[in-house]
């Protein structure tokens, strides 16, 4: 067995010392690297997934209906920020919910990462971070795409920091919601959960209409005020097309931050519940 002695336990892989903090950080980065690696390889599929739906929304609502005269000419400055916010939110949600639900219920792919030497909650945090990054990339793609479809998009250089902040928070909210759904629903129920949760979220998030214009529909205005996506849409209007009556930017940031913390904590709790018995 001498030959295989060298084979099964080859060179000791050890190098020096480090703290548990150091070890956790290395594991965290390696897991993030794994996700980036997989996404990079599946880039065309990723782009198709994220771009197609907002592309058609922009085309039909922003281009077709405007050309036919069913919407007013300024509508694109309402619609575009809303659709970008929607893209960030939904991409983040879908990027985490569906794969996670399948991983926990069927494939068990995630198990090897759960067995890595870092606190289990950090595996959930990595999922949030990665999904947020992916969603920000998708939101960024919406800008050239918007120019392509609409010709002109609302744009203010001085609104950029605000836009980045709002989009990051929107993506984080979407990721956290995805984490909750992905750990809550088993894979065979995820499509039902999506239908029940995602569709109402999409249409009560003020993506297609400004919040203040809902004063005529007070009950609906109350409902939309409960949806974090509303603050993302409104916040992005603050940044890109402030001429439209909108909620104050600070209120949007505050609401989105609050929602992020709440949904993030609930998502991590759900993740721990599924990951550990």
């Amino acid at each position: 067995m001498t030959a295989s002695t060298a084979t099964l336990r080859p060179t000791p892989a050890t190098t020096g010392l480090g703290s548990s903090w150091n070890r956790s950080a290395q594991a965290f980065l390696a897991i993030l690297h794994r996700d980036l690696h997989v996404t990079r390889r599946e880039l065309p599929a990723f782009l198709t997934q994220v771009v197609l739906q907002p592309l058609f929304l922009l085309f039909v609502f922003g281009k077709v209906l405007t050309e036919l005269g069913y919407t007013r000419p300024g509508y694109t400055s309402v619609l575009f920020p809303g659709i970008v916010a929607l893209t960030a939110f939904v991409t983040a949600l879908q990027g985490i919910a569906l794969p996670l639900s399948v991983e926990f219920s069927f494939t068990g792919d995630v198990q090897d990462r759960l067995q890595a030497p870092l606190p289990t909650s950090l595996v959930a945090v990595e999922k949030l971070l990665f999904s947020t990054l992916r969603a920000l990339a998708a939101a960024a793609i919406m800008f050239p795409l918007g120019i392509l479809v609409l010709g002109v998009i609302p744009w203010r250089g001085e609104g950029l920091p605000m836009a980045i902040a709002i989009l990051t928070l929107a993506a984080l909210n979407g990721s956290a919601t995805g984490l909750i759904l992905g750990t809550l629903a088993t894979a065979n129920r995820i499509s039902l959960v999506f239908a029940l949760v995602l569709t109402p979220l999409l249409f009560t998030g003020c993506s297609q209409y400004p919040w203040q214009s809902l004063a005529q529909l007070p009950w609906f205005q109350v409902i939309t005020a409960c949806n974090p996506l509303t603050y993302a849409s409104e916040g992005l209007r603050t940044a890109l097309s402030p001429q439209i009556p909108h909620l104050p930017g600070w209120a949007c940031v505050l609401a989105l931050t609050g929602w992020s913390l709440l949904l993030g904590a609930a998502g991590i709790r759900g993740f721990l519940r599924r990951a550990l018995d």
Partner: protein
Amino acid sequence: MTGDPPVRGMNGATSSGTGMAETRTAAPQPRLKASPACPAIEVASLVKRYPKSSGNAVDGISFTVGRARIFGLLGPNGAGKTTVVGMLTTRVRPTSGVARVAGIDVAARPAAARAAVGVVPQRNNLDRSLSIRQNLLFHAAYHAVPRAGAARRAERLLDAFGLAGRAGDKPDLFSGGQSQRVMIARALMHDPVVLFLDEPSTGLDPAARLFTWDRIRELRDQGTTVLLTTHDMDEAEALADQVGIIDHGQLLAHDSPQALVRSLPAGASLDVTVTGPAGLAAALAVLPGAERAETAAPLPGGPATGRPHEPMRYHVRFRLPAGSDPGTLIPAVAAAVSRYGGRLHQAVTATPSLEDVFLQLTGRTLR
């Protein structure tokens, strides 16, 4: 801790980490160093009760496994084997009791404990988005194994497990046996102190099973501790240095397979089938050397002629005292048979096995 589990190749003073979190959690009690002096596995009064469950899945188990040993946890399905492994590998949180791997308390410091364990589950959980080689390399990266060393190690492990030609393939295309080999190779990438294998032989063909057994023995010989669960007596007997028999969440016995068998009150037995006159049966019933003989009701031994002293067919089971060899009885049986002009048709020896140990402990068979 960069890289490897805390134990290997380090002196006693080098513990699993010098981080603040560890110092804090360890403060109230004397700190257990993850040194080779620690047993590989220590379990004391370990209990797991799942929420909404009426009983304990694991009900106060205690055992210790030394370094470089193969420990077989033997029991029927649902006995609590997988839950014990789950707790030792930090996936299941203990309800009470203590479990340590390489001296690290798995409940208090799960992240540190994970560096010391390698896990091969029953189900294929390979990362389907990655190739076989990448499965190994990313696992190494999660465990902070330096990149160049990891690449060399992956090549050697792929080679040792007969996977070298398939390194670039995706795991979807693999059979159960191949997937298991990949999972073992993956688990070894960070050189764990203890390798956990949950039902390693389930669903494998005989050749694959022997291959896995050989690799497990090699690992033990090279200093890795292996804990495997099984409901297969032969596997436990063939492979394990120590066997723990578990049923209904309790450890009923824990010793080497040989010692467990020796502890049985019953010894070996010899079953013979003979034909001959009634006198032969009477002579066999008092054969010296046997503790006792059980003779089944005689059956007709040949073509029925209706004459008295018709030869009959007898089945006799000789029970021997514990520790004696049933084969030594056969000459005496043969001599008696020839004395009475009968015939010896069959002689089968049976030595007690773990199967009998399990029967003795639980009152039922495992299969």
